[in-house]
C-alpha cells in the first residue's frame, strides 16, 4: 500500500516517524506543530525516497481562489452527518477573559454573541 501523502501536525520525532512510512516520491505537508519542536526528517528518507516537504497555511495567496470550493465540499460532509465539530463550551462577550483562558488550557471554545448581559 503506497502512501503518497503525509500530513504532519506534530513535528519533532513524529515527523521522522511519518517520513519513515511514506512511499518514494511522497509529499510530506506540515500544517501545525503541536509538539513545539522543529521537524526531524532522516536524510535517508528525504534523499532515498525523494520526499517533497511543504509548509501549509490556508491563507497563502494561491489558495484564496480555492477556498469557496473547499468550503462547499467540507460543508456537504458536515451536512451529511459524517463530520461533527465538537465544542467544549461557549462564553458571552463579557466573559472574554475567561474564554481566552479556557481556550489556552485547551478545548474548542466559542464566543456567543446571542446572549449578552
Amino acid at each position, binding site marked *: *500500500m*503506497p*502512501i*503518497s*501523502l*503525509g*500530513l*504532519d*501536525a*506534530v513535528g519533532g*520525532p*513524529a515527523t521522522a*516517524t*511519518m517520513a*519513515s*512510512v511514506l512511499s518514494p516520491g*511522497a509529499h510530506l*505537508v506540515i*500544517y*501545525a*506543530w*503541536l509538539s*513545539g519542536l522543529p521537524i526531524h526528517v532522516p536524510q535517508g528518507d528525504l534523499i532515498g525516497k525523494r520526499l*517533497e516537504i*511543504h509548509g*501549509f*497555511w*490556508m491563507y497563502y495567496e494561491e489558495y484564496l481562489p*480555492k*477556498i*469557496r470550493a*473547499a*468550503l462547499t*465540499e*467540507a*460543508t*456537504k*460532509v*458536515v*451536512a451529511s452527518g*459524517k*463530520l461533527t*465539530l465538537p*465544542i467544549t463550551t*461557549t462564553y458571552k*462577550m*463579557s466573559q*472574554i*477573559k475567561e474564554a*481566552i483562558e479556557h*481556550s*489556552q488550557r485547551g478545548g*474548542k*471554545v*466559542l*464566543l*456567543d*454573541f*446571542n446572549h*449578552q448581559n
Partner: protein
Amino acid sequence: MKAIHLTAYGNPAQSLMMVEVSEPNAPSASEALVRMEYAPIVYSEPKLPSVIGGEGAGIVEAIGPGVTSVKVGDRVTIPFGTFTWSEKVLAPAQGLFVVPPSIDARTASMLNINPTTAVLLLSEFVKLKPKDWIVLNAANSQVARCLIAIAKSRDLNVVSIVRRPELILEIEKLGVDFVGVESPEIS
C-alpha cells in the same frame, strides 16, 4: 453595540476587552450586514497558525444595493479578513458563504478554517484516487477529525500514527483504517 477589542499587546486574556462601539453603517453596494451568532476562539499560538477573530457565523440582517448572492435571514460564514468578534459586522457580500439550514449556528461558525483546511490539504499536493492511502498524526485534533471524515467521503484509506497505544480504540472510532503506534519499527 458591543465588540471585543485588543487594547494592548501581550497575553490576550489580559489585553482583549469588551467595549462599546457605534453600530456599523448601513451596507453599501456589494456589502452585507451580519448579526453574529458564534465565533470560535483559536488561541493555540504558537502551535497552530491562527488568526484571532478570523472566523464565525451569523444571520444576514441587511444587504446593500445590488447584492444578490445572499439575502436577509441567511445564515452565513464570515470571510477571512473581516474581524468577527462583534455583535454586528459589515462584510463584502461576495465573501459570505450561505450555510444550509441543516447545519446549526455553532457548527457553522467553525466551517471556515478547520474543515476547509482539511479539504485543501487533501487536494493541493497529491491527486488522490479512491482507495489511495494517506497518513496523518494528532488524529484527535479538530483538523485531523475533518481530514478523516473528508478522506472517507472520498473513499481514501487513512493511516493514523499515535504516540500511546491506549488511544488506538478511540482513534479507530473516528474512522481510520489503520492505527500505528509510534516507534522506530512502524514501517
